[in-house]
Structures are given as structure tokens and as C-alpha cells.
């Protein structure tokens, strides 16, 4: 690269990247990588929706006094009522952990008294921050209908107040979307560039590139930009399907880019080291399996040995997972993301150094 002007470098890299971006659309193997990754994202997004409408409405109740309404709701056949929360906060945290829209209902201490007096107060209710206004009014109407049927008198449900923000450790929809993001960035980033490189090797077009003004570094950078482009497409689809969960867009964007840099570097490394499709299929899975399985470990941390969880937290895919969860949470501080973002960028930089080494080694 050194002997060209910067304008020449940019022209060459851009030519290679553009050629590859178009080629992915025409190339069955590469297109499959992207489409399969996106199908998984859509599947995980659609799954909660599928069982949401098929089941009863879920209501989590925080009863400040000792209302008889609690028993009525528990016995109702059209509502799934959950009770026994020690505090309002405990009830809200539990609502935040769910990936379908839920109602957190607060029954005030004097509810029964006022009910007996024929003037029941409006009930305050909460729902997750990502539930759409349309769904909120749907749930509210359903709840009001249920209360009218049970109590024989109209009771207002007030969901206009604060929504329940997720915590960086919540399991709800945010965690599902974060998992999708980790999956889509790592799978597209690590499999697309080696596929493109292998294709050039097989067709021997790589030889033609190598006698042109393009250097191995130009070629790697071109493939990396193409890989990053499709990582961003995958992330865009993930966010488009669940934009309401995102509370901190700047962190979501930084996470996506850092995830892309890491995974594309890993893909380039595979592409530089592996020479046949069989080799590539084997090694892609050897590399991807631990990265993906450790995500499950961290998501099910309550069931796992704490030592393992604290180690697995620093696996790059889990950094993506937890950074995204922070980007989907309410109030966060730098402590929730700064070290993890730094670690993810460091993992990307270390992988890139390995790529430079691998390219130098394979250079003739």
C-alpha cells in the first residue's frame, strides 16, 4: 500500500468493496449466509408475538394493602395473575424481565374501603418501555373490562405514567434483541469475508487481483468493508424489527460498529488461513460454536457456576450482548458499558493484528 497515493488506495479498495457488495447478491453461498442470519433474527422477534396473542393477559399485582380484588383476579379464567411481590420495585423489575407486553397493576391500601363506598379510585398500572401506545390502550381496555366484570362497577386503569425501563441485567425483549444482534453481527462478519476470499481463490480471480495495482492489504480491506456493510444491514434489520427497545441509540450504534470490526476481522483471519471449503466449514463452526454457546451461558447465569459466568462475560459475543442490553436499558452510567466497549474494540484490534500477520505470511 505504501507506494500509492491515498487517493489510489481509496479507489482500489472502493472498487473491490463495491464489486463484492454486488457479488453477494448474485452469489448463492454468500447470499445464504446473510439470509440465514436474518431469518434467525426475524424468528426470534416473531416468537414472542406468536404466543402473546394465544394466551391470557398477564398481570403482575403489587397489593399495598390486603384487597379482595387480588383473589378475584387470581381466580379469573381470562387473566394470568402473578402476586407476592415484596415491593413496587420488585414487581416492576419482574415486568421488565418479560418479552411480551405485560401490565403491572398497583392496588392502593384503601382500595376496598373506597370500593365499598362506591367510589373506587383509578388503578395505577405500568408496562414495559417498548410497548407501543396502541398496545397500551388495548391492554388497558382489556383490564378495565375485566375489572368491570369482576367488581360490577367501572374502575379506571391509568397507564399514562412512567413506563418500566429495563435494567442492563434484564431478561425481557431487550435481551432477546441483544442476543439477535450478537448473533447476526458475529455470523455475518465471520462467514462472509472468508466465503468471498475462497470464491476468488477458486475462480483464480485472486491471481488477477494480485498482478493488478491491488495489494493483499487492499484486497483484505475491500472484503472487510463488504463484510461490514452486510453486518450493518443485519443490524439495521434487527433494530428495525425492534426499534422501540432501543433507549440509547449512540451506544447501540457504537456496539454494532465495534461488533462488526471484531467479527469481520475474525472472518478475514479465517479467509487468510483457510484454503478449501471443507476446511472453512469446519473452522467456522469451531470458532463460532464457543462464541455462540457462551451467550447462552451468560443469559442463563442463574443456573451456571458464577466463576464461568464472570469469565464468559468477556467473550466478545457476550460483550456485544451486554453492551446492547445496556443500550436498551433505562438510566445507565459509564460503568455499565465503557470497559466492555473497550474490551470489544481491543479484541477487534488484536484480531486485526493477527490478520496482518496472516496476510504477510501468505504473501507469495
Amino acid at each position, binding site marked *: 500500500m505504501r507506494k*500509492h497515493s491515498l487517493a489510489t488506495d481509496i*479507489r482500489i479498495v472502493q472498487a473491490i468493496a463495491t464489486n463484492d457488495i454486488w*457479488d453477494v447478491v448474485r452469489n448463492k453461498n454468500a447470499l445464504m449466509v446473510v439470509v440465514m442470519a436474518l431469518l434467525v433474527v426475524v424468528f426470534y422477534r416473531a416468537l414472542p408475538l406468536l404466543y402473546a396473542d394465544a394466551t391470557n393477559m398477564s398481570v403482575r399485582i403489587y397489593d399495598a394493602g390486603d384487597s379482595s380484588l387480588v383473589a378475584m383476579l387470581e381466580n379469573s379464567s381470562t387473566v394470568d395473575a402473578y402476586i407476592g411481590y415484596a415491593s413496587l420495585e420488585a414487581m416492576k423489575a419482574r415486568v421488565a424481565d418479560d418479552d411480551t407486553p405485560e401490565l403491572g397493576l398497583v392496588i392502593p391500601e384503601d382500595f376496598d374501603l373506597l370500593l365499598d363506598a362506591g367510589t373506587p379510585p383509578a388503578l395505577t398500572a405500568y408496562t414495559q418501555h417498548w410497548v407501543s401506545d396502541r398496545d397500551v390502550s388495548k391492554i388497558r381496555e382489556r383490564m378495565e373490562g375485566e375489572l368491570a366484570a369482576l367488581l360490577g362497577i367501572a374502575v379506571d386503569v391509568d397507564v399514562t405514567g412512567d413506563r418500566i425501563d429495563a435494567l442492563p441485567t434484564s431478561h425481557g425483549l431487550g435481551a432477546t434483541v441483544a442476543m439477535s444482534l450478537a448473533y447476526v453481527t458475529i455470523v455475518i462478519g465471520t462467514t462472509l469475508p472468508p466465503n468471498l476470499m475462497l470464491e476468488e481463490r477458486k475462480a483464480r480471480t485472486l491471481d*488477477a487481483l494480485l498482478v493488478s*495495482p491491488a495489494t493483499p492489504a487492499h484486497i483484505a480491506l475491500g472484503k472487510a468493508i463488504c463484510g461490514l456493510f452486510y453486518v450493518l444491514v443485519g443490524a439495521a434489520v434487527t433494530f428495525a424489527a425492534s426499534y422501540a427497545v432501543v433507549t440509547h441509540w449512540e451506544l447501540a450504534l457504537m456496539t454494532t460498529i465495534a461488533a462488526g470490526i471484531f467479527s469481520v476481522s475474525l472472518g478475514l483471519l479465517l479467509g487468510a488461513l483457510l484454503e478449501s471449503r471443507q476446511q472453512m466449514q469446519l473452522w467456522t463452526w469451531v470458532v463460532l460454536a464457543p462464541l455462540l454457546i457462551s451467550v447462552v451461558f451468560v443469559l442463563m447465569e442463574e443456573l451456571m457456576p458464577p466463576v464461568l459466568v464472570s469469565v464468559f462475560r468477556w467473550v466478545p459475543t457476550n460483550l456485544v450482548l451486554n453492551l446492547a442490553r445496556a443500550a436498551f436499558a433505562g438510566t445507565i452510567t459509564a460503568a455499565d458499558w465503557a470497559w466492555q466497549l473497550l474490551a470489544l474494540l481491543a479484541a477487534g484490534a488484536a484480531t486485526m493484528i493477527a490478520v496482518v500477520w496472516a496476510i504477510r505470511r501468505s504473501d507469495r
Partner: protein
Amino acid sequence: MTGTQAISVQALTRDYGAVRALKGISFDVAQGEVFGFLGPNGAGKTTTIKILTGQLRPSGGTAQVLGYDVVKERQELQARIGVVFEHQNLYERLSGRDNLTFSARLYGVDHQRVDQVLDLLGLAQQAGKKVKVYSNGMKQRLLIARALLHEPDVLFLDEPTRGLDPNVARDIRTFVAELADKGVTVFLTTHYMEEADRLSDRVAILHQGNIVALDTPAALKAKHGESLEDVFIALTGNSLRGQFEE
């Protein structure tokens, strides 16, 4: 640059593991010359081209093309040479024109030049079709068009007529002869004796990694027999043809 030499090779060797594919060859090619590199399969023709075009490091010896060292100055070198590869390495999913447009971007060549070379090689009509549906002859012409995009001073052709219909092969030979008339230096490998005889100003006969003869076709025939085939048999004790049918 050493005088008017386009290519200059000194004691070049190349090992593939324990196999020595080139055993210390030396030769010069003058500017504007058509240099035939004749030898059977496995003689080391492609290895030589790969070294001279900066794709492969020599194990020993040195070589300059257009005065550039093929190891240390390959970027400068590669900007001024064209290569037609042994294999038809084109982007099959792209059209002929898109293949050339891509190369034009790499070389920083004007887009009008794409249409020029398409015309030159008689591909203008078919330029919009995917290379996948091209015949071998069309692919070969497209490879030559690609190698000429940036108007190189030296053109390397690795067995450009192998496996082609006689008619197509003849067209390509005619084209190469025309290029030479325009002053382009041509380094051509082949295992067809008639091709080497007809096109080359001088011929090197390569046998198992050694150059066993180097002269004009006329001088070689005057010394060893009626055809280059006789020359080859006289020098190696082998039939050139026999070696291809293995």
C-alpha cells in the same frame, strides 16, 4: 534499465519443496520482441511467468522487467505489464463489460478505454452478456482485453491458445502478431511448436527447468532439423508430442 532489454533474467531458480522446477535459467528479451517460451507440461513455463510478473518469489537468481526488480519493485512493475493467465480467471457472474470496468477501476483507467478494448477484441456485441455463457474463445479474448486495458509495455501470455478451436487459436495468433507490430513486447509460453515458430522472433526451449536452446526459429531449424519438433528431439532425446499425451 539495462539497454533496451524489456526482460532480463539471471540464474533464476525456483524450488517447490524438494522439487526444483527452475534450475538456473538466464535470458534477455529485447523491447518490442516476441519471445516464445516453448516446453512440454511441467517444464517450468508458468513458474517463470509467475516470477516475472511478481506473483511468486524466486528461490535464487534475479530478474528485471522493464528495469524493475521483480521482487523489490513489483508494484511499479505491475502497473506496466499485462498478464493473460493459464486459467480463464474471470468473474463468471459478471458481464464481459463489468469484468473490464472492475479492472479499469483497479488500474485507474478511463472508462472509454473499456469500449476501446472491447472493440479491439471484437467483443462489443457480447459485452452485456454474463461471462458464464461465453465460449472458451470469447473468454480468451476477454482475458486479452483485460490484460491490455492499461496499455502495458510487456504482455505475458501463458499458453493463450491451449484448448481452443483452431479458428479461434488462429485469430488470437493474428492478434498477437498485430500487437507486436505496434511495439508491445510479448512473452508467450506455449507447447505448440508451430505457434512458437510462427509468432516468435526468438524461441527458448525449456526442458525440465533448463533452457536447452535459445535462438531464432530459423537458426534453430538450420542447426537441428526441419521443424522445432526435430530441434526438441535432437536436444532432449524426447518427443515433444509424446510428453503431452501422458
